[in-house]
């Protein structure tokens, strides 16, 4: 039956609230309004003001409040209204949420889920389209998860809420209202498992979140150019699934990593570094990256130039040295320009 990712997330929250008394959902406008993306729609009406409520408008407050609630034995699920609006909470996330278990030798844990609607492609104005996953992925103690399918949205969110550790749950805004057939409640592969979304022989496209549909589209388009591309959906950035990705690249011998975030020191850099460390002798070409430009997220009319699209992915695939010629773009002169 056809469902949207937004609906799957909403159902996951409802099922979690129903399944576990300790679960509470809060943030800005998540109560009566049901969230600006309606992900919490109907939850307050169904579960009451104690289980799903609005807070004062302060993100460090929301996350720090969740830390205290978790210490009292609850399982808070908080919504950051948009990616860039989680930045005020950065200290609470990096210095407390991520570290509390470790600081206390496991005596305290912080099973919090921080939901972050992220990335662009929705014509949003500034500060509403950041891809902030790398900040969290680089912070030990956090798990970082991002669904690309409707079923994963449900399953990964349920698992995140059940997880004993804090999870930053990154929701690709542009996929909220994309719908697909999914029987809910669905349980898909657990945390730590990447999934091959499309098998292929010639090269591996590694992507996550909003980049997965782009990768699949590119793989389709590539068939006309005679390339049979495999697409791997990372799903959980932390913990990371080396096994699946390494196996794929060892088979195909070529790899392009796709992410929407600016490329420099992003998660794609980590993936590229890991893949070449582990698959060096299998690689016929360097691991290439297709990422957002290293610029602040552009205004709506220019976002298509910024976003890694099918053409940019195909250009990268074309550069995978099928003819064993080194990539001219990276002559030393070129890069020193």
């Amino acid at each position: 039956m056809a469902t949207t990712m937004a609906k799957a997330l909403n159902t996951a929250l409802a099922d979690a609230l129903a399944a576990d008394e300790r679960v509470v959902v809060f943030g800005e406008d998540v109560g009566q309004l049901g969230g600006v993306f309606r992900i919490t729609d109907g939850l307050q009406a169904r579960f009451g003001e104690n289980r799903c409520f609005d807070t004062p408008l302060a993100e460090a407050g929301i996350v720090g409040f969740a830390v205290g609630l978790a210490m009292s034995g609850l399982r808070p699920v908080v919504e950051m209204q948009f990616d860039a609006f989680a930045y005020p909470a950065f200290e609470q996330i990096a210095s407390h949420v991520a570290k509390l278990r470790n600081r206390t030798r496991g005596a305290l844990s912080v099973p919090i889920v921080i939901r972050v609607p992220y990335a662009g492609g929705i014509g949003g104005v500034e500060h509403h389209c950041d891809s902030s996953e790398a900040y969290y992925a680089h912070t030990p103690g956090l798990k970082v998860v991002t669904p690309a399918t409707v079923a994963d949205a449900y399953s990964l969110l349920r698992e995140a809420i059940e997880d004993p550790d804090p999870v930053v749950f990154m929701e690709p805004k542009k996929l909220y209202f994309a719908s697909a057939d999914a029987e809910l409640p669905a349980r898909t592969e657990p945390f730590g498992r990447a999934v091959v979304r499309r098998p292929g022989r010639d090269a591996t496209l590694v992507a996550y979140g909003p980049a997965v549909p782009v990768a699949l589209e590119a793989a389709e388009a590539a068939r006309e150019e005679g390339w049979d591309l495999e697409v791997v959906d990372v799903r959980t950035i932390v913990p990371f699934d080396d096994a699946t990705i390494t196996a794929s690249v060892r088979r195909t011998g070529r790899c392009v990593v796709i992410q929407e975030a600016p490329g420099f020191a992003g998660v794609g850099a980590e993936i590229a570094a890991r893949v070449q460390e582990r698959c060096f002798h299998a690689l016929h070409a360097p691991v290439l990256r297709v990422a957002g430009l290293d610029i602040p997220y552009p205004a709506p009319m220019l976002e298509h130039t910024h976003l890694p699209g099918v053409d940019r992915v195909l250009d990268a695939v074309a550069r995978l040295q099928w003819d064993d010629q080194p990539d001219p773009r990276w002559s030393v002169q070129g890069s020193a320009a």
Partner: protein
Amino acid sequence: MTTTPQAVRRASPRTRRAATPPDPARPLLPDVEPVRLLDQSGTPLPARTDYPEPPVEALRELYRRMVLGRRFDTQATALTKQGRLAVYPSSRGQEACQVAAVLAVRDTDWVFPTYRESMALVARGIDPVEVLTLLRGDWHCGYDPAAVRTAPQCTPLATQCVHAAGLAHGEAYQGRDTVALAFIGDGATSEGDFHEGINFAAVFKAPVVYFVQNNRYAISVPLSRQTAAPSLAYKGVGYGVPSEQVDGNDPVAVLAVLTRAVAHARAGNGPFLVEAHTYRMEPHTNADDATRYRDGAEVDAWRDRDPVTRLETYLRARGVLDDAAVADIAEQAETYAADLRTRMNEQPTVDPLSLFDHVYAEPTPQLIEQREQVRAELAAARDEEGDA
């Protein structure tokens, strides 16, 4: 908004000692009732020595800009429906605050607006097309902030409160008597940056007026979820900052209170906090559905407090505004709106390569590399079109 039961219990021992010594809080606290110079119908209330009524010329100009501002606002909403704007946060109902605030400062002062202040910015004289650039989506800030002494409209809530403190201190440090006017909403006062900003201003005695438009909602969240204080103006004393609350739909009172606050700051007495009680008649933005969180009766009650009608009634009663003048101003408003409509109907062109121009003063080697790649992509795309 009400005091706790225990608080009442505590009252007696307090009052017992209240007299001795003088309470340092008293001069910093706001009036218990919001300052009001016109009643709801526009009839003047007894004059106040502490808030003298602004000159009639100022009030007429206030009225004129409120009418133009409202027309701008409805035009912007219309443009959104036509898909000319990505989104628009209306400030209909808040005209008294939006316009009186910018009339209370000089062109040489600095204004720190939020996304809500489009009306205030056009009332300040900024080109409406430049103001709407952000919402049309061809770039972020459409006007030159340095030229118009107005910061880009601020979306990350309350962050502008700290910038205003720094700007004001920097100007004073360089011997200029600039005042910074920082707009902020009721919900945003819950953010840490409001606290840090007003505290920096107070400690450095920076000339900043913090102007809280308390329109009772932060998107869907009512004021009761933002504070348990008697009112937001009571936050001033905790920073040693004098504060006042005002009827935000009484244009005369808002202008009088802000004029005094600006004078206080310019005179070197440090920041001043003003809370205006007002109401947003439209949804948070066109994308919002206000019926989900507030009922029509509440909105209707506020319609009766309309600030434009209120000022018009008063000025007519004083005999300084007649049908001719009202008609003339209405016509100015239509011309203004028509001009805006025409200009907004032109599709703006933006060069994709300009994305690389302002990340740094000079693009890094990495950006140059990326720019060349995009340039090649665009060329390839043009060729394909050529072929087709």
